[in-house]
């Protein structure tokens, strides 16, 4: 009867709408996290997945600007490589399947983000000193991760193009890599601290340190 949903939004309006929705989700998730008592990291993985999925889909109008790389990197630092890779898989598969388009590249995206998560886990001790996130180092790694992720995903063109096309393809994509890198810098600068507070509360205590803690008690 009434066609109230037939409203045409300009791209800018829909981007603003998406950012508003994302803010509501982030705010609601942060509020609800305070009530999670147990320190089960899988709950946090779920929360991070919601962040990543919502962020990637809603920020899609901005080229290559999404929080997933930084989230997976943080997950690697706090929760280790396996959980970070799982998170990468969940986010890539869900976002591609629901909204952005699923295909062979999904596997390359999972590999790319998985690699970012593994890097986070490998450099965890370097990036996290006395539970204090070293933001400058994280920013550098996040910028490198942007390029590494994009180049891993670019390898998917080898499925239907020959190797000589790879270098021109990568060169053509360099601007999008830069968007990704600057986006990561933004997320590290503005999101890493609140997110890491959240994650620290549900951090897994590695068994070796856990014994230590028990001993001090």
């Amino acid at each position: 009867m009434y066609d109230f949903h037939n409203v045409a939004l300009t791209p800018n309006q829909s981007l603003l709408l998406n950012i508003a929705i994302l803010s509501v989700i982030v705010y609601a998730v942060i509020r609800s996290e305070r009530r999670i008592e147990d320190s089960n990291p899988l709950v946090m993985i779920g929360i991070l997945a919601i962040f990543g999925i919502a962020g990637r889909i809603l920020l899609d109008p901005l080229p290559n600007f999404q929080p997933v790389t930084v989230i997976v990197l943080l997950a690697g630092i706090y929760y280790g490589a396996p959980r970070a890779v799982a998170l990468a898989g969940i986010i890539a598969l869900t976002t591609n399947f629901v909204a952005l388009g699923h295909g062979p590249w999904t596997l390359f995206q999972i590999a790319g983000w998985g690699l970012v998560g593994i890097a986070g886990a490998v450099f965890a001790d370097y990036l996290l000193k006395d539970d204090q996130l070293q933001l400058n180092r994280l920013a550098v790694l996040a910028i490198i991760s942007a390029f590494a992720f994009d180049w891993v995903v670019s390898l998917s063109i080898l499925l239907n193009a020959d190797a000589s096309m790879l270098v021109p393809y990568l060169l053509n994509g360099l601007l999008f890599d830069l968007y990704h890198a600057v986006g990561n810098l933004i997320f590290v600068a503005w999101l890493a601290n609140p997110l890491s507070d959240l994650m620290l509360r549900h951090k897994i205590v590695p068994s070796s340190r856990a014994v230590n803690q028990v001993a001090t008690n």
Partner: protein
Amino acid sequence: MSNYLKPLSVVAVIVLILLAPSIRDALKEEAATYVNDSESSHNGLPESWNNSQVFCVLFLDQVSHPKFTSGVTMIESDGSILGTNSEYNGTGACVGGFSGYENGLDLMNDAVNSSGNDLVYNSTEFSFGLQIDSIGNIEPCDVAECSDSSGAYWALYHNGGASMVGISDVILEEADVLLWQIETW
């Protein structure tokens, strides 16, 4: 320690937004690769145009077009510059990335539009078709000596061979290449 990270990230965004167009053009030029196959009518043209229709104009070196002074400038159908092939045998410009054109004159008109009218032409309508008098405001006799016994004209090539018909009668297929260059007699 990380106090400056937030302002730095904002500055980085602003710088990137300001620089994006020039970075894009520079990368595009850097990434352009050209067909290297003397048998192909696309020889010397960007590989990304392999399946598209292309319109080229070559000026004689001695009277280069004011804008196209060296090599062959490759212009996309949207008017953006793809790059300049300095290895190309000649000086001028090509406009490519077109598809679906069946008539030579239609392609030429749209290519001239894409070039921002740098390739604007003058023509005379004859009963047998259109004769091109000047392209890019250059007339053949500006470049070559024209007398009673000699002259110069804009010659049309279709896929590398001299066209048998005038521009308004050329029937195009996909990936065809039209080229004008000045010839003397």
